[in-house]
């Protein structure tokens, strides 16, 4: 199963992922048209700065996700077929229980329509838009095994 991995240390803070995420979740799916949409399409990945590091963060699709447990409306659900935490905006009532419990702080709020928004891992695409857009390889869409191999390889090199 493929997941989004974050190669901390590679991010240069260019925010290409944020932009690609906005475009992917726009109505037009085109950068220039997306810029004139109202409301402006929102991003679900956030480049955070802290302690000299830059970290692109999006939903980790946790297992036994706290946001799913906390959701009082059933809008936030675990989809056992795709192994994704999915959010249904039609059901969401905007109580923000999920915002209260997400340990990564990656659930946004659409204030006007009062619904939560978060990464859907671009389930319609082969590769998530943020990963595709990242020019430095800070975001990877791969399996845990592959990631482990990469990591071990690096450790060996560093010796």
């Amino acid at each position: 199963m493929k997941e989004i991995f974050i190669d901390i240390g590679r991010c240069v803070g260019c925010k290409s992922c944020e932009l690609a995420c906005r475009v992917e979740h726009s109505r037009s799916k085109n950068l220039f048209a997306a810029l004139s949409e109202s409301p402006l399409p929102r991003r679900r990945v956030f480049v955070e700065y802290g302690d000299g590091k830059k970290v692109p963060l999006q939903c980790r699709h946790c297992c036994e996700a706290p946001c799913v447990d906390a959701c009082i409306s059933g809008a936030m659900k675990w989809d056992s077929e795709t192994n994704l935490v999915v959010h249904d905006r039609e059901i969401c009532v905007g109580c923000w229980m999920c915002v209260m419990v997400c340990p990564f702080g990656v659930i946004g709020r659409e204030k006007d329509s009062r619904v939560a928004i978060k990464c859907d891992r671009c389930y319609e695409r082969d590769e998530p838009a943020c990963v595709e857009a990242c020019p430095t390889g800070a975001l990877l869409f791969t399996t845990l095994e592959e990631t482990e191999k990469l990591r071990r390889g690096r450790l060996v090199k560093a010796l």
Partner: protein
Amino acid sequence: MNHVIIGNSAAGVSAAETIRVIDRSSPITIISDELHTFYSKSLIPDFISGKASLEKTYLRTDTFYKEMDINTLFGEKVDKVYPGKNTLALSSGQEIEYGKLLVATGAGPRVSVDIDTGIENFFTARTIEDAQAVKEAALQARRATVIGAGLIGLKLAAALNSLGLEVTVLGKYEILLPRVMDSTAGEILREVFEGNGVNVLTGVKVSRVSSDGVRLSDGQYVASDMVVMAAGVKPNIDMLEGTEVEIGGGIVADSQMRTNLEDIYAAGDVVEDIDFLGGGRRFINPIWPKAVLQGRIAGSNMAGIKRNFPGSMMMNSVQFFDTPLISVGIVLHEGCDYHEEVIRYNKKEKVYKKLIFEKDRLKGAIFLGEIDKAGVITNLIREQRDIAPIKERLLSKSFGYGNILKVPVADRAWIV
């Protein structure tokens, strides 16, 4: 093993699902005195306001119980449990055997005021049926009074206000949300309610509810066409009366959610928790996520896989009109050696953020108006992590997960 669960709500269903994942074949029976399929009690205010239809309050599909191979006895009340015989008696007279029993009966409304007998416009709001009655009464009424200025009382008041009723909220304490907000936040909140046309009377005591209004102990009379009471809950434990199950403020359970009796477990609002943030405070923590989690832990242990409940702490999140608010952990700390830092306060913009510390541990937080990334703080409180190295950053406006990333956290999604 024959699993029987009393209560078809957050805790009960979560337990049943967990048992079924571990054990494909043992019989599971859920008993509920309600007729409805699993719905969200927390959505009752949204159901009353019309924001959520009845269908929207349902949390599983029609075929859920069949697919999960769960027997249901709905519309059946459990009168009594006989631990010696491992049976229980339904009010219909039927006797049911259990191998393991989960009591997930939740908590009912506490009605602690004097009410004229026979009046038809007094309501509580713990079930969807209650909510339907409130909704119908609201169609006829012009003025509504809500007794209770806690989260549920205020949610109900906002719902009735949105239906166009003239609403008065009566609170026992001076501030709104006395258990989860401080006086600064409470004042902002009062402005939010009053600004939206809700009358707020705090520091008052109800002496009598009559069909045409509510009499307060100071002599005031609040005329109203309907009265809704939401001032505290009490655990539904009648069926355990006379048994040896240990009861305090609610059912006492260990970290595996087992009572003092081998085959009886408890989960959700019916349980008396110990505040894991310290002080040994025992309390009922009637919140949805805790009920789901305790249900899962109970179910797992009932099915033979040992798991421990990580501990209970107060938290809640809600939006009143345009103002969201979140309160986590211990926010009222009189008599404790805690200190607090107000990160932001802007009365005009209705923004207030405060963190509460005990030395280098976070104990609580209030977010009002601005709640983004609150979960990062909630998690620091839950983990009781030493925050000394990040304290400065914690107080900055842009604080987020990136600031506390030290080592890979989730084993599945990082490489260093």
